[in-house]
């Protein structure tokens, strides 16, 4: 069979073939019509695929071979921190005492799990410089929303009902304005200056009595450290607003600088990025949120507390914004993050940051000769190139990204941040060797040369993948969302 001809599981179906065997029924059977109202009963059998266990195994194994993950190759997706996920994490997450828990078990029977949650809260408090942490949010954007809801509750508790605006920089992650909108705020954009940092003059202009918060990543999405952060904190706090830290880029400063010391009041972390939870295949993520003392009363409940050596869920939190996720967050991912923190230790986490920054700067300097570098300064864990030079030759950043597929790489983030034309955003992470970085750089240099000498090969890429260039425009304009069985 041709590799591109992998049929759908529905097309592999043969009537009557089964891939399972169930034990004999040992309870009495009841007619469904006695249990459900007529309107909810289906009239036709669902057309489920019928295949053997081996057919199913081969089908999904074939599909999995078409996938690209950190375990199969370099994945320098900017702002996503696609670092290696140590297999030690998987071992620990599979311990019986973690994997086989029931969320409704009595607290006395899950003291070990509660201890892990408590210790993780403590570690994250230390790493971020905050005063308390909730482990509930399911991922980054959920953490943003949780943090903003707490800020809202804080202002309201102070009788401050006119703080309706959240300020975000023009280089912000798209989730920031989205979370602010969902939390009921209006978003105001603050401009970047010629160095790629938040323009303080513009910030002073937009803050005021209606400012609820400023949302910021530091380093920002250009990979640049917001060196005026203390002054920015003063400006926002002076106006009565709060500072929100988007932890997407924590890998650049972890164990070197703490958001809490920079003046941030609320922080979310992406345990699935910085703390090696597996991601990229749909998660699940984990987005704990830390707060300074004055916001503690508003944290989602319950929080794990410790009293006389006994761990318990504290539900007695009258000002809490409530529960933001069923049960206690994505516990399995939190186990992995805890394992990672304990494996690395404080010195290990410092080394992570150092290597992440070193790798990014090394790549940036080698590539700066071949691609435009809009902000020519030391970067942190990631950097942004511009495909402007190649665009003049008729080769767009999208083409460069597609061409990278031919060499077995997951392309970097493209067309983001929005304030850089034809942006290419590269984050190598600390877990890649110099050999891997060099190999990728050489390919990027080759593509830059191809753009000059043989642009068609880039414009028409990819050439070696299972499917070629997709017609993304037609897919978006005229989407076919439902499988139609061939007659």
């Amino acid at each position, binding site marked *: 069979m041709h590799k591109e001809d992998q049929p759908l599981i529905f097309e592999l179906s043969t009537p009557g073939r089964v891939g399972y065997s169930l034990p004999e029924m040992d309870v009495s059977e009841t007619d469904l019509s006695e249990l459900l109202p007529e309107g909810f009963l289906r009239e036709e059998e669902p057309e489920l695929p019928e295949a053997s266990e081996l057919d199913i195994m081969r089908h999904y194994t074939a599909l999995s071979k078409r996938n690209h993950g950190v375990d199969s190759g370099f994945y320098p997706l900017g702002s996503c921190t696609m670092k290696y996920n140590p297999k030690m994490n998987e071992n620990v997450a599979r311990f019986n005492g973690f994997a086989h828990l029931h969320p409704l078990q009595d607290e006395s029977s899950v003291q070990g799990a509660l201890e892990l949650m408590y210790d993780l809260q403590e570690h994250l408090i230390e790493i971020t410089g905050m005063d308390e942490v909730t482990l509930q949010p399911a991922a980054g954007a959920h953490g943003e929303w949780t943090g903003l809801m707490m800020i809202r509750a804080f202002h309201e508790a102070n009788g401050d009902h006119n703080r309706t605006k959240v300020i975000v920089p023009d280089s912000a992650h798209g989730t920031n304005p989205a979370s602010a909108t969902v939390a009921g705020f209006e978003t105001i954009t603050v401009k970047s200056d010629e160095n790629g940092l938040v323009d303080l003059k513009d910030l002073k202009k937009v803050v005021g009595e209606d400012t609820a918060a400023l949302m910021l990543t530091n380093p920002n999405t250009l990979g640049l450290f917001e060196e005026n952060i203390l002054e920015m904190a003063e400006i926002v706090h002076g106006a009565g607003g709060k500072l929100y830290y988007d932890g997407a880029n924590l890998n650049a400063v972890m164990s070197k600088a703490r958001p809490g010391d920079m003046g941030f009041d609320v922080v979310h972390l992406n345990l699935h990025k910085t703390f090696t939870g597996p991601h990229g295949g749909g998660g699940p993520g984990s987005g704990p949120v830390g707060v300074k003392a004055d916001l503690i009363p508003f944290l989602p409940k319950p929080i794990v507390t410790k009293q006389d050596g006994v761990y318990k869920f504290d539900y007695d939190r009258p000002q809490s914004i409530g529960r933001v996720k069923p049960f206690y967050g994505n516990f399995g991912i939190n186990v992995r993050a805890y394992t990672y923190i304990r494996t690395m230790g404080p010195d290990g986490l410092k080394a992570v940051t150092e290597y992440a920054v070193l790798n990014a700067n090394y790549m940036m300097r080698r590539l700066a000769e071949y691609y435009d570098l809009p902000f020519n300064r030391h970067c942190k864990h990631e950097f942004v190139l511009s495909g402007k030079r190649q665009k003049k030759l008729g080769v767009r950043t*999208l083409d460069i990204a597609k061409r990278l597929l031919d060499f077995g790489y997951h392309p970097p983030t*493209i*067309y*983001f941040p*929005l304030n850089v034309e034809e942006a290419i955003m590269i984050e190598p992470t600390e877990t890649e060797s110099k050999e891997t970085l060099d190999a990728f750089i050489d390919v990027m240099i080759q593509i830059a040369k191809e753009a000059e000498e043989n642009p068609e090969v880039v414009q028409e890429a990819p050439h070696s993948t299972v499917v070629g260039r997709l017609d*993304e*425009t037609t897919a*978006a*304009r005229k989407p076919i969302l439902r499988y139609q069985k061939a007659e």
Partner: protein
Amino acid sequence: MNTPKELRYSEEHEWVQVEGEKVRIGISDFAQSELGDIVFVELPEVGDEITVNEPFGSVESVKTVSELYAPVSGKVVEINEELNDSPEFVNESPYEKAWMVVVELSDSSEVDKLMTAEQYEEMIKE
């Protein structure tokens, strides 16, 4: 790049065509070529008030979603509903078929503050 002389332009790449007390608004040829293939256009409703320099809708291309910034203030009296089904008009015919809204001006002096075609061409050269 096509920049019709009779239109006025905003820094956010909207064009404005004066029709008496009303103006017709769309996005420039330069804007559509920077955005790439447009797949969705979100417009305000007839009767909505729009305010100069504030978003009044958005265009989504294969690579990004961009806000449409009002070049003038006023009341929306007409919207181009054809763009719902045919967002490709923005790429194919940015000045004709892909007009987006017609607005009744609340302050006609705002039009005078917009760029001429020559000024706009100068700006996009950079």
